[in-house]
């Protein structure tokens, strides 16, 4: 029997550190998009409770151990790190999205300033606290930004655009850090 080798979007390219900012790959496994059928959001939330999670409000994430659920748009969320629980399949359309996103975590003292080069939404801590998520642009790419710690923001774009994300982040950090 043949054996296929799995490769994450940034395999062997990350982590890197530039000007005090660290870029690390985030590759949750599995990732499932969850889209409740009509009127089934509450029921979907109930099904998720066995994981210690509920249905996230817009702009919200919830986490419990390895399990994380991230709001991802109109009536849609991404469940990461665990398989979908029993009973969810009847309430929502489940689609495997493992590997479909190129995700990185940006850590460091001035990540808000650096990301201000690429992201148009307000990322100031009071307005974008730990656990908040936004669907927005990163440069020219649609994607999401999520604050996972005071000094850490996760960025996710379509997997096929991963190289562009890395290029844009590297450029932004480099040019910003070269300011006199």
């Amino acid at each position, binding site marked *: 029997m043949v054996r296929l080798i799995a490769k994450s979007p940034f395999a062997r390219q990350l982590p890197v550190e530039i000007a005090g900012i660290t870029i690390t790959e985030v590759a949750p496994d599995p990732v499932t998009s969850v*889209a409740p059928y009509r009127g089934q959001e509450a029921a979907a939330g109930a099904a998720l409770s066995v994981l210690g999670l509920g249905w996230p409000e817009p702009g919200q994430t919830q986490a419990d151990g390895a399990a994380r659920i991230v709001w991802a748009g109109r009536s849609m969320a991404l469940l990461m790190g665990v398989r979908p629980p029993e009973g969810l399949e009847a309430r929502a359309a489940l689609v495997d999205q493992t590997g479909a996103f190129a995700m990185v975590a940006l850590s460091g003292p001035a990540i808000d300033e650096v990301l201000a080069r690429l992201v*148009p939404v307000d990322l100031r801590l009071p307005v974008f606290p730990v656990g908040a998520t936004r669907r927005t642009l990163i440069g020219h*790419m649609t994607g999401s930004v999520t604050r996972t710690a005071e000094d850490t923001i996760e960025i996710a774009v379509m997997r096929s655009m991963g190289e562009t994300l890395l290029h844009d982040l590297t450029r932004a950090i480099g040019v910003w850090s070269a300011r006199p």
Partner: protein
Amino acid sequence: MRIDGHGRIGTAPLGFTFDGKRYEGREGDTLASALLANGAALVGRSFKYHRPRGILTAGSEEPNALVSVGQGASAIPNTRATVQELYDGLVARSQNRFPTLKHDLMAVNDLMAPFLGAGFYYKTFMWPRGFWEKLYEPVIRHAAGLGSLASDYDHEVNEKAFAHCDLLVIGAGPAGLMAALAAGRAGADVILADENDRMGGRLLAEVEDIDGVEAHDWAEEVLTELRGLPNVRLMTRTTVTGAYDQGTFGALERVARHLPPGGDAPRECFWRISARASILAAGALERPIAFPDNDRPGVMMAGAVRAYLNRWGVAPGRRVTVFANNDDAHRTARDLAAAGVTVAGVIDVREDAAPGGDFPVFAGAEVVGTTGRHALEHITIRYQGSTRNIRTDCLAMSGGWNPTVHLTCHMNGRPVWNDDIASFVPAPGAIPGMEVAGAAAGHFSTDACLRDGLRAAGAALSALEQKAPDIPVPEAEGRDYAIRPFWLVEGKGRKWLDFQNDVHVKDIRLAAQENFRSVEHMKRYTTQGMATDQGKSSNVAALAVLADATGRAIPETGTTTFRPPYSPVAIAAMGAGAEGMGFAPRRLTPSDGALRAMGAPMIEVGLWYRPSYVPKADETTWQEACDREVRQVREAVGVVDVSTLGKIDIQGPDAAELLDFVYANTFSTLKVGRVRYGIMLREDGHVMDDGTTARLGEHHYVMTTTTAAAGQVMRHLELALQVWRPDLDVRIASVTDAWAQFSVAGPRARELLNTLLDDPTDDATMPYMGCGAVRVGGVEGRLFRISFSGEMAYEIAVPVDYGESLFRLLSSQAEVMGGCTYGMEALNVMRLEKGFITHAEIHGRVTAFDVGMDRLVSRKKVCVGQAAAARPGLTDPGRERLVGLKPVRPGDALSAGAFLFDRDAEPVRSNAQGYVTSVGPSPTLGHWIGLGFLKRGPDRHGEVVRFVDHLRGTDFLCEICEPVFFDPDGGRLRG
């Protein structure tokens, strides 16, 4: 000349060159102050008449001293010398002159002045008629324009960024500083922006005290406190360039233009700032007086002269005169005299101008002329009935001050005339959420500015629902603004208004005379106010002249509006990061790395990169590779990455009904484990996209779209679900990037797959157009038996993380079997041989009927576009319809984009019978083949038509045929 002991800048010397000559300046100088310190009065030639010009102002409103800074590809034209901070080794050059600044041949234009008045090109250069396009216009165009651009690519780096705040304070003079202080102490998130490298505004240029200390020191104290507040952000060198909807502002920060080029620092940063409230404290700009020959080098603004003296320690002349209609300008004379500079006289138009100081004051006098070609030498004044000459090398003029209202006009507001200050002030509420404070609102004393800054902060904080702190107003001068409106001195000689576009009083009067009486018409007819300074120094005076010429008061005459940007913005800054490869995101497939390593040239398909062909070492042309790939696929097996096609996961109880609604043909009859081809129409009945949809489960489908239309189809489905059919309980998700998908095609395709599948597949378990789950090395994947090549073929999909691994295995095994990895050229040839259409054919203006798929549009159900597609004009048999094309002479190469004509017709537009959409060289048939559209196409098979490609210069005969060239019965598909 530099005055020792004066100035508020450093002393470290800096070397620079201007027009090849070396000079020395000081740290803190601008190029302008350094040139004046060195006595270099002549800095440029005016736009139209090439008149010698000198520095007029000390700010970004400068119309004369436009120079080119830097060298080679990174040189920046039209830089205002008054804004350019000096650095060691700076190289600057004057513009708009040939061969030199002092001896400019184009000055002949000045002699031709009578023929070059406003609108001259509507009256002259009319004869002979043909000469306009051939001679006059090119010559005029060549002479026009200011500055020049290097034709090399500029590699300087720029930045773009976003910022958010509660309060944006625009301008850091006394009003702005007080406002920022109040809001900062109140705890609001404040951004204080100033276009200068130092904050303080006019306090840096004046001799006065605030709270008992020198005003510029007081400013520094405030700034020290502001720097210590974590909620206040100071942005120097930052010009707020535009006010836009909902509290959005554009701003340009000159990050490194005060440093030598070639470093890593970004040259500029273009900001978009989102502010919940804003305060415009942008100050006021002094305006000139129009008198004969008022544009000589050495004629300057009075406020600028004392800024050069007090801030930079430079006296722009040794014998200075002042010409004014207001008290404020007298400060220039007093400051100069106190510094030991000779003041040869103050000429004040007001009879009651007060004497004051160690210099003569000519009350009730006017300047009626000047002399000195490359530098001012004398002025002539009319005083008490007679004229006299005064020897002077610098005339400091002031017609009063104009509040800097520009930003308040950016959302269509027009400013309001204020008789008390004889100038325009902003209309209240012109920009929602913006307060205007200080001189920008028409308050000119320092005391009034400080108070007004506090008031504005209070209003802004109140709107932000925050509490304003109690701050006492510092003690400062509060003198009245004494002015008598005075616009021009009549007399012989041109009286300049717009220095940058060379417009003078007579031009305005001519416009009025020719009935261009509205200010909008006068502006465009004379070009007054249309230069890069948007008329900052000339608008009000020109308006006064027009008002007078048309017998109206100024408020009646109106005003033109201002548009962003406030001062010029380089496109490189707005597009920072988006040049070259940064223009758009690149989408890479799972096989991308492997293909590039194989030497495949990659081409852009939308945002994706796909291989054009995969060459063998001995192949030198694309066609060699393409021919071989087609042969290998049809004889053995080929592998191609098809991950780029859009894939949409569709689930829910009403999924089948959604498909029936968006597809023209029926999908609700599709069984589990089967795939069907479908076409999708737009609302207007034209074909939007085609693709296949597979039924994987009871209520589970996967739709594929073409690569280019994936986003469009996704949006279309969202529109269908959210707007047209909200009754449907369906959920959709894009899975284009979630699956790596490869097409394996050819007689040995199944054989190749079975070397990798955990459980082998055969014709019984998966017939043509079947689909199902499979496993590769335990990894769950999907198999679809569909073909775009016309050979027996499968598409195998695995989760994208395993894509590269699967691709490499398929590729190498294919080679063993005498097959290959192939690219887009071969893919295109094979689909052409089978007559399969792509977006080259369904280009947005064809219907299902046109491509011969009318029978696919079901009449038994309703679908998007069905009704519109049935409109009479869209079913006329005379329409251009899909046909195949073969060259009559086998060696002729077809080209897409060519037109088809009856064989004896003249190949002109009106005779066009059709056009060619796709072509390719077919090794299977031994000649080129193509698809195209021809009027009544299906009825004309066998006819010979004339094929003409006007662009490439080809013209030969073609035979019209069935749009299928190979295996029309599809036997090879079914294996």
